C-alpha cells in the first residue's frame, strides 16, 4: 500500500471516529433550530386560569420569554422553581413579559399543577398543538426568548436550571433589556 493510500485511509477513519465521537458525547438536546432570527409566530390561546384569550401580539415591543410546559412533564416540575425565580428577577421591568404555554395537557390537570406549584405569570393553552408546531417544539420543557422586534433570539430544550438559568438571565434577557448584544454560548 502506498503512502498516499495509507494517508487517505487514516483520514477516512479519523473522520468516521470524529462523527462517532460527536454522536456519543454530543448533547442530544442540541438540535439546531431554524427559527433563530426569524419572526416569532403571533400565537394566541385561552388563559389556563381565567379562560381569557392571551395573544402574543399584545406584547409586541417587549422582551418575551415563552416557556412550554405540561403537568405530566417531570422536567417541568424540576425547572418550575427556577422559572418562578427568573420571573421574580425581571418582573419589575416594564419591557419584560413571561408567558407559559401549556402543551398536550388536560385543563383540570394544568390548573391543579399551577395551584399546587404556584405561578406569578400567565399561561396560555395550546389547544390543538398548533402553537407548539408553529414554534417547532420537540417536547417539554422548551424555552424561547423573543426580542423587542418580535424575533426569536434564543431557544433551549430542557429544564432552565443551574448554568442554563445563568445563561438565560445574564447572557440573553439582561442584555436584550439593555439593548446590548447577547451571548448565546452557555
Amino acid at each position: 500500500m502506498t503512502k498516499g493510500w495509507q494517508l487517505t485511509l487514516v483520514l477516512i477513519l479519523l473522520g468516521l471516529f470524529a462523527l462517532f465521537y460527536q454522536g456519543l458525547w454530543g448533547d442530544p438536546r442540541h438540535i439546531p433550530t431554524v427559527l433563530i432570527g426569524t419572526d416569532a409566530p403571533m400565537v394566541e390561546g385561552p388563559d389556563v386560569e381565567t379562560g381569557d384569550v392571551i395573544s402574543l401580539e399584545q406584547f409586541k415591543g417587549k422582551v418575551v420569554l415563552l416557556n412550554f410546559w405540561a403537568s405530566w412533564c417531570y422536567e417541568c416540575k424540576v425547572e418550575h422553581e427556577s422559572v418562578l425565580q427568573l420571573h421574580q428577577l425581571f418582573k419589575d421591568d416594564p419591557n419584560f413579559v413571561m408567558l407559559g404555554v401549556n402543551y398536550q395537557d388536560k385543563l383540570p390537570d394544568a390548573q391543579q399543577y399551577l395551584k399546587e406549584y404556584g405561578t406569578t405569570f400567565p399561561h396560555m393553552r395550546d389547544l390543538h398543538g398548533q402553537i407548539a408546531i408553529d414554534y417547532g417544539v420537540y417536547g417539554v420543557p422548551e424555552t424561547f426568548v423573543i426580542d423587542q422586534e418580535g424575533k426569536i433570539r434564543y431557544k433551549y430544550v430542557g429544564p432552565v436550571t443551574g448554568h442554563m438559568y445563568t445563561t438565560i438571565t445574564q447572557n440573553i434577557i439582561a442584555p436584550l433589556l439593555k439593548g446590548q448584544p447577547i451571548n448565546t454560548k452557555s
Partner: protein
Amino acid sequence: MRMSSRFTLILLLILTSPWPLLAEVQDETALDIQVREIAKTLRCTVCQTENIWESGAPLAQQMRGVVRERLKLGHSPEDIKEYFLSRYGDYIMMEPPKHGVNWFIWVGPFILLLGGGLLLYKEVNGWVRGTPSTPAAPPPPLDEQARQRLERELES
C-alpha cells in the same frame, strides 16, 4: 331447499364476501390519501424513527391534523412540507433534502463503497503480483547425519 341449507348458504355468503375490504377502500377519500402521502414524508419529532403517519404520539396526530387543515385550505403538498421545514428544519423530513451538506448523506455511502472497492482491488492486485509465477527451487538434499536422525525419530 330446506331451511337449514338456506341458512348455511347465506352464512357462507356473508363469511366469504370481501366486504371489509370494500369498506376500507370506500372510507379513504382523496383528501385522506393526500394526507397519508404527505404524512409519510414527515418525521415524528417525538419518536424520531417513525413518520407522523405511523406514529401514535399526540404531536404526530396534531401534525396530521395540520396537514389535513392546510390541504383543505388549498395549500399544495410542497407548501405544507415547506411550512414544516421552516419550523423544524431538514430534520423533519424522513428523507434529507438534497442540498448543501446533506449531499454527503446521499452520496457518502457510494463514495465509501467505491473507495473501499478500489482499496481492496489494489491490495488483492498487489498480493497476486507478489506471488512468484515459477515454483520455488527444490530444497537441498539432506546430509547423511540428518537422514539418520530422521529415520530414528520416525521409528521411535
